[in-house]
Protein backbone atom coordinates (compact mmCIF):
# COMPACT_ATOMS: atom_id res chain seq x y z
CA UNK A 1 0.00 0.00 0.00
CA UNK A 2 2.78 2.40 0.97
CA UNK A 3 4.68 1.54 -2.25
CA UNK A 4 1.58 2.26 -4.41
CA UNK A 5 0.92 5.63 -2.74
CA UNK A 6 4.53 6.63 -3.15
CA UNK A 7 4.34 5.76 -6.88
CA UNK A 8 1.18 7.89 -7.28
CA UNK A 9 2.81 10.90 -5.57
CA UNK A 10 5.83 10.67 -7.84
CA UNK A 11 3.57 10.53 -10.95
CA UNK A 12 1.62 13.66 -9.95
CA UNK A 13 4.79 15.61 -9.20
CA UNK A 14 6.31 14.57 -12.53
CA UNK A 15 3.25 15.68 -14.64
CA UNK A 16 3.12 19.01 -12.82
CA UNK A 17 6.74 19.72 -13.51
CA UNK A 18 6.32 19.00 -17.23
CA UNK A 19 4.49 22.31 -17.66
CA UNK A 20 6.30 24.34 -15.02
CA UNK A 21 9.63 24.15 -16.78
CA UNK A 22 8.16 25.12 -20.15
CA UNK A 23 9.20 28.39 -21.62
CA UNK A 24 6.65 30.15 -23.82
CA UNK A 25 7.92 32.96 -25.98
CA UNK A 26 5.85 35.07 -28.28
CA UNK A 27 7.14 37.42 -30.97
CA UNK A 28 4.56 39.84 -32.36
CA UNK A 29 5.26 41.97 -35.40
CA UNK A 30 3.39 45.27 -35.63
CA UNK A 31 3.75 46.23 -39.27
CA UNK A 32 5.21 49.54 -40.43
CA UNK A 33 2.30 51.18 -42.23
CA UNK A 34 2.52 54.03 -44.69
CA UNK A 35 -0.61 55.99 -43.83
CA UNK A 36 -1.30 59.70 -43.57
CA UNK A 37 -2.21 59.58 -39.88
CA UNK A 38 -0.63 56.68 -38.03
CA UNK A 39 -1.69 55.81 -34.47
CA UNK A 40 -0.12 52.96 -32.51
CA UNK A 41 -2.59 50.07 -32.39
CA UNK A 42 -4.35 48.79 -29.31
CA UNK A 43 -3.30 45.15 -28.92
CA UNK A 44 -4.63 42.34 -26.73
CA UNK A 45 -2.91 38.98 -26.30
CA UNK A 46 -4.57 36.09 -24.56
CA UNK A 47 -4.76 32.33 -24.20
CA UNK A 48 -8.17 31.06 -25.22
CA UNK A 49 -9.78 27.74 -24.32
CA UNK A 50 -11.69 25.57 -26.78
CA UNK A 51 -14.99 26.94 -25.45
CA UNK A 52 -13.79 30.47 -26.35
CA UNK A 53 -13.36 31.50 -22.71
CA UNK A 54 -10.14 33.26 -21.77
CA UNK A 55 -7.70 31.19 -19.71
CA UNK A 56 -5.11 33.91 -19.35
CA UNK A 57 -4.52 37.51 -20.41
CA UNK A 58 -0.90 37.97 -21.42
CA UNK A 59 -0.91 41.58 -22.57
CA UNK A 60 -3.13 44.55 -23.31
CA UNK A 61 -1.26 47.48 -24.89
CA UNK A 62 -3.49 50.54 -24.72
CA UNK A 63 -2.40 53.06 -22.17
CA UNK A 64 -1.48 56.43 -23.53
CA UNK A 65 -1.33 59.60 -21.51
CA UNK A 66 -1.62 58.51 -17.85
CA UNK A 67 -3.67 61.64 -17.17
CA UNK A 68 -6.37 60.58 -19.62
CA UNK A 69 -7.48 57.30 -18.09
CA UNK A 70 -11.10 57.45 -19.23
CA UNK A 71 -10.01 58.46 -22.70
CA UNK A 72 -7.70 55.45 -22.94
CA UNK A 73 -10.36 52.95 -21.92
CA UNK A 74 -12.89 54.55 -24.27
CA UNK A 75 -11.37 52.76 -27.24
CA UNK A 76 -10.75 49.42 -25.58
CA UNK A 77 -14.09 48.16 -26.89
CA UNK A 78 -12.58 48.45 -30.40
CA UNK A 79 -10.70 45.26 -29.49
CA UNK A 80 -14.10 43.71 -30.03
CA UNK A 81 -13.24 40.06 -29.51
CA UNK A 82 -11.08 40.60 -26.43
CA UNK A 83 -13.50 43.09 -24.91
CA UNK A 84 -16.33 40.62 -25.14
CA UNK A 85 -14.38 37.56 -24.00
CA UNK A 86 -12.51 39.20 -21.15
CA UNK A 87 -12.01 42.96 -21.09
CA UNK A 88 -15.48 44.00 -20.01
CA UNK A 89 -15.26 41.74 -16.94
CA UNK A 90 -11.92 43.12 -15.81
CA UNK A 91 -10.90 45.98 -13.59
CA UNK A 92 -8.22 47.85 -15.46
CA UNK A 93 -5.28 48.30 -15.34
CA UNK A 94 -4.18 44.72 -14.68
CA UNK A 95 -0.81 44.37 -12.98
CA UNK A 96 1.75 42.72 -15.23
CA UNK A 97 -0.65 42.59 -18.16
CA UNK A 98 -1.74 46.06 -19.29
CA UNK A 99 0.68 48.64 -20.57
CA UNK A 100 1.36 51.34 -23.08
CA UNK A 101 0.81 51.06 -26.80
CA UNK A 102 3.87 49.99 -28.75
CA UNK A 103 5.48 51.24 -31.93
CA UNK A 104 5.73 49.34 -35.21
CA UNK A 105 8.35 46.60 -34.97
CA UNK A 106 8.97 43.23 -33.33
CA UNK A 107 7.89 42.76 -29.71
CA UNK A 108 8.80 39.79 -27.53
CA UNK A 109 7.01 38.33 -24.56
CA UNK A 110 8.43 35.45 -22.51
CA UNK A 111 6.77 33.42 -19.80
CA UNK A 112 7.64 30.20 -18.06
CA UNK A 113 5.17 27.66 -16.78
CA UNK A 114 5.68 28.75 -13.16
CA UNK A 115 4.53 32.29 -13.70
CA UNK A 116 0.93 33.19 -12.78
CA UNK A 117 -0.01 33.76 -16.44
CA UNK A 118 0.58 30.06 -17.22
CA UNK A 119 0.71 28.25 -13.88
CA UNK A 120 -3.03 27.57 -13.72
CA UNK A 121 -3.41 26.34 -17.31
CA UNK A 122 -5.01 22.91 -17.23
CA UNK A 123 -3.85 20.33 -19.75
CA UNK A 124 -5.70 20.73 -23.03
CA UNK A 125 -6.00 22.47 -26.37
CA UNK A 126 -5.69 26.24 -26.54
CA UNK A 127 -5.30 29.10 -28.95
CA UNK A 128 -2.86 31.97 -28.57
CA UNK A 129 -4.86 34.95 -29.77
CA UNK A 130 -3.58 38.38 -30.74
CA UNK A 131 -6.03 41.15 -31.63
CA UNK A 132 -4.99 44.56 -32.91
CA UNK A 133 -7.17 47.62 -33.59
CA UNK A 134 -5.85 50.88 -34.92
CA UNK A 135 -7.46 54.34 -34.87
CA UNK A 136 -8.56 55.24 -38.42
CA UNK A 137 -7.30 51.80 -39.32
CA UNK A 138 -8.53 48.23 -39.19
CA UNK A 139 -8.93 45.43 -36.73
CA UNK A 140 -7.37 42.00 -37.06
CA UNK A 141 -7.28 38.79 -35.02
CA UNK A 142 -4.52 36.19 -35.44
CA UNK A 143 -4.78 32.76 -33.81
CA UNK A 144 -2.25 30.01 -33.18
CA UNK A 145 -3.56 26.68 -31.85
CA UNK A 146 -1.30 24.85 -29.39
CA UNK A 147 -1.44 22.05 -26.84
CA UNK A 148 -0.55 22.44 -23.18
CA UNK A 149 1.68 21.09 -21.79
CA UNK A 150 3.90 21.14 -24.87
CA UNK A 151 5.00 17.65 -25.82
CA UNK A 152 8.30 18.79 -27.25
CA UNK A 153 9.90 21.96 -28.55
CA UNK A 154 7.59 23.74 -31.00
CA UNK A 155 7.81 26.69 -33.33
CA UNK A 156 4.40 27.84 -34.47
CA UNK A 157 3.52 30.81 -36.62
CA UNK A 158 0.64 32.74 -38.09
CA UNK A 159 0.56 35.89 -40.15
CA UNK A 160 -1.87 38.79 -40.23
CA UNK A 161 -2.77 40.59 -43.41
CA UNK A 162 -3.02 44.22 -42.48
CA UNK A 163 -2.84 45.18 -38.82
CA UNK A 164 -0.55 42.36 -37.67
CA UNK A 165 2.57 40.90 -39.23
CA UNK A 166 4.05 37.57 -38.20
CA UNK A 167 3.10 36.19 -34.81
CA UNK A 168 5.51 33.46 -33.70
CA UNK A 169 4.93 31.17 -30.73
CA UNK A 170 7.82 29.10 -29.42
CA UNK A 171 7.33 26.45 -26.76
CA UNK A 172 10.35 24.90 -25.07
CA UNK A 173 9.46 22.28 -22.43
Amino acid at each position, binding site marked *: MRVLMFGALVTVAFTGSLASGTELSLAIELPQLDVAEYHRPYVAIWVEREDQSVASNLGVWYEGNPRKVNEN*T*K*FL*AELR*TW*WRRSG*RNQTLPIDGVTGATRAAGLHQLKFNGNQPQLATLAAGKYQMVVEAARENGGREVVRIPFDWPAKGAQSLQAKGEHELGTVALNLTP
Partner: protein
Amino acid sequence: MTTRTPPRAALVRAAVVRTGWALVAAVPLVAHAHKPFLVPSETVLSARGWITVDAAVSNDLFYFNHQPLRIENNLRIIGPDGGAVEAANLNTGKFRTTFDVNLTASGTYKLAMVNNSLQATYEADNGERKRWRGTAATFAGEVPANAQNLQVSQTQTRIETFVTSGKPNDTALKATGTGLELVPVTHPNDLVAGEPATFRFVLDGKPAAGIKVMVVPGGTRYRNKQSEQHVVSGNDGQVSLTWSDPGMYWLEARVEDDKAMKPAKTRRASYIATLEVLPP
Protein backbone atom coordinates in the same frame (compact mmCIF):
# COMPACT_ATOMS: atom_id res chain seq x y z
CA MET B 1 -40.57 50.18 -57.06
CA THR B 2 -44.34 49.80 -56.49
CA THR B 3 -46.39 52.93 -55.79
CA ARG B 4 -46.58 53.74 -52.14
CA THR B 5 -49.90 54.22 -50.37
CA PRO B 6 -50.32 57.80 -49.14
CA PRO B 7 -48.41 58.42 -45.93
CA ARG B 8 -50.46 57.49 -42.91
CA ALA B 9 -50.26 61.05 -41.65
CA ALA B 10 -52.18 62.24 -44.71
CA LEU B 11 -54.81 59.54 -44.25
CA VAL B 12 -55.17 60.50 -40.61
CA ARG B 13 -55.66 64.14 -41.48
CA ALA B 14 -58.34 63.15 -43.96
CA ALA B 15 -60.00 60.99 -41.33
CA VAL B 16 -59.98 63.85 -38.84
CA VAL B 17 -61.78 66.09 -41.30
CA ARG B 18 -64.37 63.44 -42.15
CA THR B 19 -65.15 62.02 -38.74
CA GLY B 20 -64.15 64.66 -36.22
CA TRP B 21 -61.43 62.58 -34.61
CA ALA B 22 -60.41 64.19 -31.35
CA LEU B 23 -56.74 63.66 -30.74
CA VAL B 24 -56.26 64.23 -27.07
CA ALA B 25 -52.77 62.99 -26.27
CA ALA B 26 -49.87 63.27 -28.73
CA VAL B 27 -49.49 59.58 -29.37
CA PRO B 28 -47.10 58.33 -32.04
CA LEU B 29 -48.82 56.57 -34.90
CA VAL B 30 -47.51 53.05 -34.69
CA ALA B 31 -48.90 51.88 -37.97
CA HIS B 32 -48.16 48.87 -40.10
CA ALA B 33 -46.68 51.11 -42.75
CA HIS B 34 -44.16 53.05 -40.68
CA LYS B 35 -41.63 51.83 -38.22
CA PRO B 36 -40.82 53.82 -35.06
CA PHE B 37 -37.36 53.40 -33.62
CA LEU B 38 -34.80 54.57 -31.07
CA VAL B 39 -31.26 54.36 -32.46
CA PRO B 40 -28.36 54.89 -30.04
CA SER B 41 -25.01 56.21 -31.25
CA GLU B 42 -23.31 53.18 -29.68
CA THR B 43 -24.40 50.15 -27.70
CA VAL B 44 -21.12 48.72 -26.35
CA LEU B 45 -18.85 51.14 -24.52
CA SER B 46 -15.67 50.57 -22.56
CA ALA B 47 -15.82 53.84 -20.65
CA ARG B 48 -18.41 55.95 -18.87
CA GLY B 49 -19.73 58.93 -20.78
CA TRP B 50 -22.35 60.21 -23.12
CA ILE B 51 -24.29 58.60 -25.93
CA THR B 52 -26.85 60.25 -28.16
CA VAL B 53 -30.11 58.72 -29.38
CA ASP B 54 -32.19 59.39 -32.47
CA ALA B 55 -35.92 58.72 -32.29
CA ALA B 56 -37.94 58.70 -35.48
CA VAL B 57 -40.68 57.04 -37.52
CA SER B 58 -39.98 55.90 -41.06
CA ASN B 59 -40.60 53.20 -43.61
CA ASP B 60 -36.88 53.01 -44.18
CA LEU B 61 -34.39 51.77 -41.61
CA PHE B 62 -32.78 53.67 -40.12
CA TYR B 63 -33.36 56.88 -42.06
CA PHE B 64 -34.93 60.11 -40.92
CA ASN B 65 -37.26 60.97 -43.76
CA HIS B 66 -40.79 60.94 -42.36
CA GLN B 67 -41.64 61.97 -38.80
CA PRO B 68 -39.91 62.47 -35.48
CA LEU B 69 -40.93 60.19 -32.65
CA ARG B 70 -42.76 62.52 -30.26
CA ILE B 71 -41.43 62.03 -26.79
CA GLU B 72 -43.58 63.63 -24.11
CA ASN B 73 -43.39 62.16 -20.62
CA ASN B 74 -43.24 58.70 -22.07
CA LEU B 75 -39.47 58.13 -22.15
CA ARG B 76 -38.26 55.66 -19.52
CA ILE B 77 -34.51 55.19 -19.19
CA ILE B 78 -33.51 52.61 -16.60
CA GLY B 79 -29.93 52.42 -15.37
CA PRO B 80 -27.83 49.43 -14.30
CA ASP B 81 -29.10 49.72 -10.71
CA GLY B 82 -32.73 49.78 -11.80
CA GLY B 83 -33.08 53.50 -11.10
CA ALA B 84 -34.50 56.10 -13.50
CA VAL B 85 -32.07 58.12 -15.63
CA GLU B 86 -32.91 61.51 -17.15
CA ALA B 87 -32.36 62.31 -20.78
CA ALA B 88 -30.61 65.56 -21.64
CA ASN B 89 -30.83 67.96 -24.57
CA LEU B 90 -34.16 66.61 -25.78
CA ASN B 91 -35.07 68.22 -29.08
CA THR B 92 -37.70 67.47 -31.69
CA GLY B 93 -36.83 68.48 -35.21
CA LYS B 94 -38.49 68.02 -38.55
CA PHE B 95 -37.71 64.33 -39.02
CA ARG B 96 -36.21 63.15 -35.76
CA THR B 97 -36.11 63.69 -32.05
CA THR B 98 -32.72 63.54 -30.41
CA PHE B 99 -31.59 63.28 -26.82
CA ASP B 100 -28.39 62.52 -24.93
CA VAL B 101 -27.82 60.13 -22.06
CA ASN B 102 -24.90 60.28 -19.65
CA LEU B 103 -23.84 56.77 -18.72
CA THR B 104 -22.31 57.44 -15.34
CA ALA B 105 -22.34 53.86 -14.10
CA SER B 106 -21.13 50.55 -15.48
CA GLY B 107 -23.74 48.12 -16.65
CA THR B 108 -26.73 47.93 -18.94
CA TYR B 109 -29.20 50.73 -19.62
CA LYS B 110 -32.64 50.13 -21.09
CA LEU B 111 -34.15 53.03 -23.04
CA ALA B 112 -37.87 52.77 -23.66
CA MET B 113 -40.69 54.84 -25.01
CA VAL B 114 -43.92 53.51 -23.54
CA ASN B 115 -47.46 54.32 -24.57
CA ASN B 116 -50.77 53.09 -23.32
CA SER B 117 -53.86 54.58 -24.88
CA LEU B 118 -57.45 53.89 -25.76
CA GLN B 119 -59.21 54.37 -29.08
CA ALA B 120 -62.91 54.39 -29.65
CA THR B 121 -65.31 54.62 -32.53
CA TYR B 122 -68.99 55.42 -32.12
CA GLU B 123 -71.95 57.13 -33.70
CA ALA B 124 -72.94 60.56 -32.47
CA ASP B 125 -76.58 61.65 -32.09
CA ASN B 126 -76.71 62.82 -35.67
CA GLY B 127 -75.45 59.47 -36.92
CA GLU B 128 -72.01 60.86 -37.70
CA ARG B 129 -69.24 58.32 -37.24
CA LYS B 130 -66.74 59.57 -34.70
CA ARG B 131 -63.30 58.49 -33.57
CA TRP B 132 -61.70 59.23 -30.22
CA ARG B 133 -58.23 58.68 -28.76
CA GLY B 134 -57.27 59.20 -25.15
CA THR B 135 -56.86 57.47 -21.81
CA ALA B 136 -59.14 55.67 -19.37
CA ALA B 137 -59.15 58.87 -17.31
CA THR B 138 -60.38 61.11 -20.13
CA PHE B 139 -62.83 58.61 -21.62
CA ALA B 140 -65.86 59.43 -19.47
CA GLY B 141 -65.54 63.15 -20.02
CA GLU B 142 -65.09 63.03 -23.77
CA VAL B 143 -67.09 60.12 -25.12
CA PRO B 144 -70.87 60.65 -24.81
CA ALA B 145 -72.57 58.28 -22.42
CA ASN B 146 -75.22 57.46 -25.02
CA ALA B 147 -72.75 56.74 -27.82
CA GLN B 148 -74.11 54.17 -30.26
CA ASN B 149 -72.13 51.25 -31.68
CA LEU B 150 -69.29 52.05 -29.34
CA GLN B 151 -66.12 50.07 -29.87
CA VAL B 152 -63.19 50.68 -27.59
CA SER B 153 -59.75 49.20 -27.93
CA GLN B 154 -56.48 49.62 -26.06
CA THR B 155 -53.06 50.03 -27.63
CA GLN B 156 -49.91 49.35 -25.67
CA THR B 157 -46.61 50.16 -27.33
CA ARG B 158 -43.09 49.77 -26.08
CA ILE B 159 -40.16 50.98 -28.24
CA GLU B 160 -36.78 50.05 -26.78
CA THR B 161 -33.06 49.93 -27.23
CA PHE B 162 -30.16 48.89 -25.00
CA VAL B 163 -26.72 50.27 -24.19
CA THR B 164 -23.98 48.82 -21.98
CA SER B 165 -20.94 50.51 -20.51
CA GLY B 166 -18.39 48.02 -19.20
CA LYS B 167 -19.70 44.74 -17.85
CA PRO B 168 -23.28 43.92 -18.91
CA ASN B 169 -25.89 43.20 -16.26
CA ASP B 170 -29.62 42.57 -16.38
CA THR B 171 -31.16 44.66 -13.59
CA ALA B 172 -32.57 47.17 -16.07
CA LEU B 173 -33.84 44.39 -18.31
CA LYS B 174 -36.41 43.00 -15.90
CA ALA B 175 -39.96 43.05 -17.23
CA THR B 176 -42.29 45.65 -15.76
CA GLY B 177 -45.18 43.22 -16.08
CA THR B 178 -47.36 45.37 -18.33
CA GLY B 179 -47.84 44.82 -22.04
CA LEU B 180 -45.54 42.94 -24.38
CA GLU B 181 -41.89 42.92 -23.31
CA LEU B 182 -38.60 41.29 -24.24
CA VAL B 183 -36.60 39.57 -21.54
CA PRO B 184 -33.09 38.41 -22.44
CA VAL B 185 -31.86 34.91 -22.60
CA THR B 186 -29.08 36.29 -24.79
CA HIS B 187 -28.13 39.74 -23.50
CA PRO B 188 -29.20 42.34 -26.12
CA ASN B 189 -25.74 43.97 -26.05
CA ASP B 190 -24.01 40.66 -26.63
CA LEU B 191 -25.11 40.13 -30.23
CA VAL B 192 -22.55 39.03 -32.81
CA ALA B 193 -22.97 38.27 -36.51
CA GLY B 194 -23.03 34.54 -37.07
CA GLU B 195 -24.12 33.71 -33.51
CA PRO B 196 -27.78 32.86 -32.81
CA ALA B 197 -29.56 34.85 -30.11
CA THR B 198 -32.48 33.80 -27.93
CA PHE B 199 -35.04 36.18 -26.48
CA ARG B 200 -38.12 35.55 -24.41
CA PHE B 201 -41.34 37.49 -24.85
CA VAL B 202 -43.59 38.08 -21.89
CA LEU B 203 -47.10 39.53 -21.97
CA ASP B 204 -48.17 41.19 -18.73
CA GLY B 205 -45.20 39.47 -17.10
CA LYS B 206 -45.96 35.91 -18.28
CA PRO B 207 -44.17 33.98 -21.05
CA ALA B 208 -46.13 34.57 -24.26
CA ALA B 209 -46.55 31.81 -26.80
CA GLY B 210 -47.48 32.35 -30.41
CA ILE B 211 -46.18 35.91 -30.63
CA LYS B 212 -45.37 36.88 -34.23
CA VAL B 213 -41.93 38.46 -34.42
CA MET B 214 -40.33 40.17 -37.40
CA VAL B 215 -36.70 41.32 -37.68
CA VAL B 216 -35.42 43.62 -40.43
CA PRO B 217 -31.79 44.63 -40.93
CA GLY B 218 -31.04 48.35 -41.27
CA GLY B 219 -29.57 49.85 -44.41
CA THR B 220 -32.73 49.29 -46.47
CA ARG B 221 -31.75 52.02 -48.90
CA TYR B 222 -28.83 49.97 -50.19
CA ARG B 223 -30.55 46.74 -51.06
CA ASN B 224 -33.48 45.61 -53.16
CA LYS B 225 -35.30 43.38 -50.67
CA GLN B 226 -36.64 43.88 -47.16
CA SER B 227 -34.84 40.67 -46.05
CA GLU B 228 -37.22 40.25 -43.12
CA GLN B 229 -36.90 37.33 -40.73
CA HIS B 230 -40.19 35.97 -39.33
CA VAL B 231 -40.39 33.77 -36.25
CA VAL B 232 -43.10 32.82 -33.76
CA SER B 233 -42.47 32.42 -30.03
CA GLY B 234 -42.73 28.95 -28.52
CA ASN B 235 -44.67 27.91 -25.44
CA ASP B 236 -41.89 29.31 -23.29
CA GLY B 237 -42.19 32.66 -25.07
CA GLN B 238 -38.79 32.16 -26.67
CA VAL B 239 -37.57 32.90 -30.17
CA SER B 240 -34.21 32.15 -31.71
CA LEU B 241 -32.82 34.68 -34.18
CA THR B 242 -29.85 34.59 -36.51
CA TRP B 243 -27.95 37.47 -38.12
CA SER B 244 -25.42 36.83 -40.80
CA ASP B 245 -24.18 40.43 -40.97
CA PRO B 246 -23.31 43.03 -38.36
CA GLY B 247 -25.45 46.16 -38.21
CA MET B 248 -28.51 47.67 -36.58
CA TYR B 249 -31.64 45.52 -36.67
CA TRP B 250 -35.29 46.43 -36.10
CA LEU B 251 -37.43 43.95 -34.23
CA GLU B 252 -41.20 44.04 -33.91
CA ALA B 253 -43.48 41.72 -31.96
CA ARG B 254 -47.23 42.12 -31.72
CA VAL B 255 -50.22 40.40 -30.20
CA GLU B 256 -53.92 41.07 -29.85
CA ASP B 257 -56.24 39.76 -27.13
CA ASP B 258 -59.17 40.71 -24.96
CA LYS B 259 -57.26 41.43 -21.74
CA ALA B 260 -57.93 45.11 -22.12
CA MET B 261 -58.18 47.92 -19.61
CA LYS B 262 -61.83 48.98 -19.12
CA PRO B 263 -63.70 50.33 -20.98
CA ALA B 264 -61.73 48.74 -23.84
CA LYS B 265 -62.72 45.31 -25.09
CA THR B 266 -59.66 44.43 -27.17
CA ARG B 267 -56.00 45.08 -26.53
CA ARG B 268 -53.23 45.39 -29.11
CA ALA B 269 -49.75 45.11 -27.62
CA SER B 270 -46.62 45.89 -29.62
CA TYR B 271 -42.98 45.58 -28.74
CA ILE B 272 -40.32 47.19 -30.91
CA ALA B 273 -36.56 47.20 -30.37
CA THR B 274 -33.41 48.36 -32.13
CA LEU B 275 -30.64 45.83 -31.66
CA GLU B 276 -26.98 46.28 -32.64
CA VAL B 277 -25.15 43.22 -33.95
CA LEU B 278 -21.38 43.56 -33.94
CA PRO B 279 -18.75 41.86 -36.13
CA PRO B 280 -17.25 38.60 -34.83
